[in-house]
């Protein structure tokens, strides 16, 4: 069969048109389906901290030791150079508005575990000039130490003091290095990553697993049936400085 020049052009044109339509259809349908998948299974990692349980074993600090070991947190004697991912402060300091003059000392003076709030609207990520810190789709406020230039804008932006700067090489101040997790280097900012590296392996954060009192309840805040959501339905919870509009993902049962 011999095709004329006119037929050839007609067939080529139709083929090109068909191929173009297919790509257009794909590019339209693909984001739509991925959006749909995300809305059926959205994730927002969050944590509920039961202070009444924590109070029962004041001064325990098992959560802090577990985090320090897992993430190679240096123990620096110079307080100005301190690096911390999870730490404690007295209840009266953390929740000044939730204090009455007549609360017992056992409540006001106990130490409250503090960590990055992994805010819904994190002020720290907005100010980062290199996008070295950003909010993941699962709500974790993440850091890319490869990109951090040490400007410390994020340190200034965080209202919770959750970020630390490496003023010196941390390695000499780490008693025992965990090879599975990188240390940081002089000149970068660091903070709690909600044990993102453990979540990827299906584990819960190190502090959650280490606590002998089961003070920490970790789970998906976007799932109404998750453990933290159940606790938040049943009991009265507070966030740190919610009036700032940061939307912390860490809740405290008083």
């Amino acid at each position: 069969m011999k095709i004329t020049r006119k037929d050839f052009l007609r067939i080529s044109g139709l083929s090109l048109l068909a191929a173009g339509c297919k790509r257009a259809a794909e590019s339209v349908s693909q984001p739509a389906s991925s959006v749909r998948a995300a809305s059926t299974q959205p994730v927002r990692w969050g944590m509920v901290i039961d202070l009444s349980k924590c109070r029962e074993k004041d001064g325990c600090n098992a959560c802090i030791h577990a985090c320090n070991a897992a993430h190679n947190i240096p123990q620096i004697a110079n307080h100005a150079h301190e690096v911390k991912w999870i730490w404690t402060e007295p209840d009266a300091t953390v929740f000044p508005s939730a204090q009455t003059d007549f609360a017992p000392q056992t409540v006001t003076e106990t130490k409250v575990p503090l960590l990055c709030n992994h805010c819904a609207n994190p002020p720290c990520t907005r100010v980062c000039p290199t996008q070295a810190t950003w909010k993941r789709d699962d709500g974790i406020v993440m850091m890319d130490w490869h990109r951090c230039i040490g400007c410390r804008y994020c340190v200034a932006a965080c209202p919770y003091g959750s970020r630390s700067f490496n003023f010196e090489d941390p390695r000499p101040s780490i008693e025992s290095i965990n090879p599975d997790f990188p240390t940081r280097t002089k000149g970068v900012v660091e903070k709690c990553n909600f044990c993102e590296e453990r979540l990827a392996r299906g584990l819960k954060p190190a502090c959650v697993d280490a606590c002998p009192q089961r003070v920490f309840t970790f789970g998906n805040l976007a799932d109404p049936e998750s453990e933290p959501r159940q606790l938040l339905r049943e009991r009265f919870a507070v966030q740190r400085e919610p009036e700032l509009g940061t939307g912390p993902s860490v809740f405290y049962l008083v």
Partner: protein
Amino acid sequence: MRDRVWIFAGLAFFVAALTCPAWYAVANGKASNKSKPPNLELPANQKECVAPAGTMRAAHMQMLIQWREDVVRHGDRRFVAFNGKVYEKSLTRTCLGCHNKEQFCDRCHAYSGVSDPYCWNCHNDPQTVAGSRTRSTP
């Protein structure tokens, strides 16, 4: 035409100056080492890498940067190799799970004159760290 001597003398000097590091190396016997590859200790328990040796030799740095982007920025830790095998995208766990940093990486980097990339400012060599750990906890 009477300047020809000067011109060629100048050219000869220029070529000699340009090539002097090579001559210097030959004189010190280094170039002869360079010609024979470094003595790399290959993993004992594995026969194949995440990509063919040629690809790894030429482009392991691009692959590591790709892995870094995938893991840190996209939470994507799963690497499907050319032969269908699945690996974790991890310098410490996957690369150093087989290779010995000192006997493999460092030797070749030293041979190529690109020693001490700043990966190691933060990332740890499990064997070195295990040594330090043993020392720090007697």
